[in-house]
């Protein structure tokens, strides 16, 4: 048995490493876009997102004063720190906060080509050494007669910004927003402007909440009847519900467009609420019936003996006890309706006033701004944020629902 125990512990490390790698592969794509959504537009095209925390080097030309030069043997020596004193005055504030020299040089033409800590040679036996913290030592056989002009690549601190989110939600960049504000536009005006993502965000909410609530009630009553009432044809009905679980939605598009047009609700919110209700019902009835059938028979029979009607039993006993199943379905349906593109393409008009986020991203953003990743990344995370919050807070019910639906 010792042998087996030994095998286990060596395998244990492999398991840890393998799981870690798997998780890494699974979250890197999301992480990449998330980091990108908070980076400056220029930074995105210059360096990979995995370098975002390192900051990106930018080249500046510094002029270091030579007032403090001293003679040391044959050489004239200047020692100073480039981030202090006169040479620092030309640098932008944000460089000063987390200053580091990535490379430097002695000639503007050749640019910053020497690594910090090493020595660069210049005209007239000029020798310059710069440390990454900015300490500079320059020596020359002749007296320095003007400031040293040195190109330097300085690492800007990582710039994480929420500007992309503001831009995508209002469809205006910082300048345009300032202008609009000067012209008297309020925040509401900007959020509801024509090409802004905020409108589709509200529309998505408007589609998904009624489309989640309504099928739950219809399905709960039906599930109760299928679980606890005896009537001819019950088995057949359950079989039909199971069959309908897998019917492709595509079959319903043309007929429903025609049927909806009879009532004048094609391409309308009412139409999409009804469509989502119909499409969500099989899963709702199936999940809820499976759960309700497992409730203890005693409770329900006792209530019947005490003279409770079916309606009372359903409302006061079965419905409260079925909360976990109701929650599972609610999460499924909410995620499904929030994330849906297909049903929205068929049942909602495509104008920005009533379109949902998924459709807005695919038709408006991917088409016209396909290369602008600062916009696309921020839009993606506006779209993903709500489902992620629901997911992480209600994961327990989601898992339970999945298990009830598939494992017996």
């Amino acid at each position, binding site marked *: 048995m010792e042998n087996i125990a030994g095998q286990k512990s060596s*395998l244990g490390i492999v398991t*840890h490493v*393998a*799981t870690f790698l*798997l998780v890494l592969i*699974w*979250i890197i*794509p*999301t992480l990449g876009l998330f980091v990108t959504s908070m980076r400056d537009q220029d930074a995105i*095209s210059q*360096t*990979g997102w*995995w370098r975002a925390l390192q900051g990106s080097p930018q080249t500046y030309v510094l002029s270091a004063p030579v007032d403090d030069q001293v003679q040391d043997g044959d050489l004239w020596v200047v020692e100073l720190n480039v981030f202090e004193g006169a040479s620092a005055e030309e640098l932008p504030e944000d460089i000063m906060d987390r200053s580091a020299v990535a490379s430097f040089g002695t000639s503007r033409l050749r640019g910053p080509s020497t690594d910090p800590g090493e020595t660069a040679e210049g005209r007239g036996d000029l020798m310059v050494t710069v440390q990454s913290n900015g300490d500079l030592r320059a020596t020359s056989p002749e007296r320095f007669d003007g400031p040293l002009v040195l190109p330097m690549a300085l690492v800007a601190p990582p710039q994480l910004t929420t500007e992309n989110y503001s831009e995508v939600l209002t469809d205006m960049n910082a300048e345009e927003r300032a202008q609009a504000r000067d012209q008297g536009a309020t925040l509401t005006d900007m959020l*509801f402007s024509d090409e802004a993502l905020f409108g589709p965000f509200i529309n998505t909410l408007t589609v998904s909440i009624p489309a989640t609530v*309504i099928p739950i*009630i*219809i399905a709960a*009553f*039906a599930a109760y*009847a299928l679980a606890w*009432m005896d*009537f001819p044809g019950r088995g057949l009905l359950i*079989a*039909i519900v*199971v069959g*309908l679980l*897998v019917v*492709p939605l*595509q*079959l*319903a*598009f*043309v*007929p429903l467009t*025609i049927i909806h047009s009879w009532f004048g609700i094609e391409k309308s*919110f009412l139409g999409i*609420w*009804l469509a989502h*209700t*119909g499409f969500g*019902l099989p899963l709702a009835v199936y999940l809820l019936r499976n759960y309700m059938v497992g409730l203890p028979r005693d409770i329900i029979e006792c209530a019947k003996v005490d003279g409770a*009607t*079916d309606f009372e039993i359903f409302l006061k006993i079965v419905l409260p006890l079925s909360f976990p199943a109701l929650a599972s379905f609610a999460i499924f349906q909410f995620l499904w309706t929030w*994330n849906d*593109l297909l049903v929205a393409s068929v049942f909602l008009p495509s104008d920005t006033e009533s379109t949902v986020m*998924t459709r807005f*991203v*695919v038709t408006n953003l991917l088409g016209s701004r396909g290369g602008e990743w600062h916009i*696309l990344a921020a839009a*993606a995370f506006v*779209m*993903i944020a709500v*489902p992620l919050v629901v*997911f992480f807070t209600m*994961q327990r019910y989601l*898992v339970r629902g*999945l*298990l009830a639906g*598939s*494992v017996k």
Partner: protein
Amino acid sequence: MFDSVLFTGIVTIIVGVGGMFAYFWLSNMFLDKVLFPASGPNIGRNINRATAIRPWLFLFPAIFALGLYLVVPVGYSAWLSVTSGVAEDGGWYRNYSEIFQNRTFRVALLNNLLWVLVVPAGATFFGLVAAQLTDQLSWGNIAKSLIFMPMAISFVGASLIWSFVYHPSIDIGVINAIRGLFGAEEGVTLIDGQIFDSFLLMVVLIWIQTGFAMVILSAALRGVPEETVEAAIIDGANPFQIFFKIKVPQIKGTIVVVWTTITILVLKVYDIVAAMGSQYRNLEILPTQMMQYFDSGNYGFATAISVVIMVLVLPVMVWNIRQARAEMR
């Protein structure tokens, strides 16, 4: 405008929810107090009749909605596919024969079959591996959560996430950056309409569905009796043998359920191709084809394609129903 949309939404919830409860309450009242009151000379007969009718009161809204939004459309679509469009003045089969003569349709059909083969296999495989790995670890639940997370992300969001991974620039896309590590000088365009680019889109769906497979298979793995594993250890089986020869055969049923559930999903998937490869004909699948004909108002072809999708789903549907019936007995 937006305020009024939100307002309509709230009113709909109130009217919808209130209306449903009012319907159930009033119809039950009507049944018990007016139609068949539990009093008077026929009390026994009345109670029996009320009991016979009540289930249908409970079921009516669901049956009505399911009928109108799923059952009727299936029949109606099938009918339209043999009567509308080119079928109007040719044979009933004209819509079908014409779409099958279209090269793009055949490519879409082939792609769909590839999706159906690759995605369920990939997601089930990774799900099984993830389930087995995470079940043994103290931080397994966190790992599970993170692998499961893509389930919450919309297909469109996932498409954006992966388009960025596939970005053609060596400084932006992760895949190209990895090629850079191995000495590549310049990035390549990964998705440019080659037929095998479909596999890159399939990766997105595998990435999303692995969490689903993992959750269900993990529950099944935990149900495998300890004794069988212990017996195998004593007989000197190594961990791989234990996994593939002891555990996997015992959860075969669940693996089939996971596989078929993902297969159904794959047949309906539209968003990923619409978001990532809509400009390339070689990447099309049946649902994107169907939507093109739908948008251009060619209902004959659109319904014909949707019926083709239905036919592909049919075996799974029959199998599901038989499973459910077997369980109820």
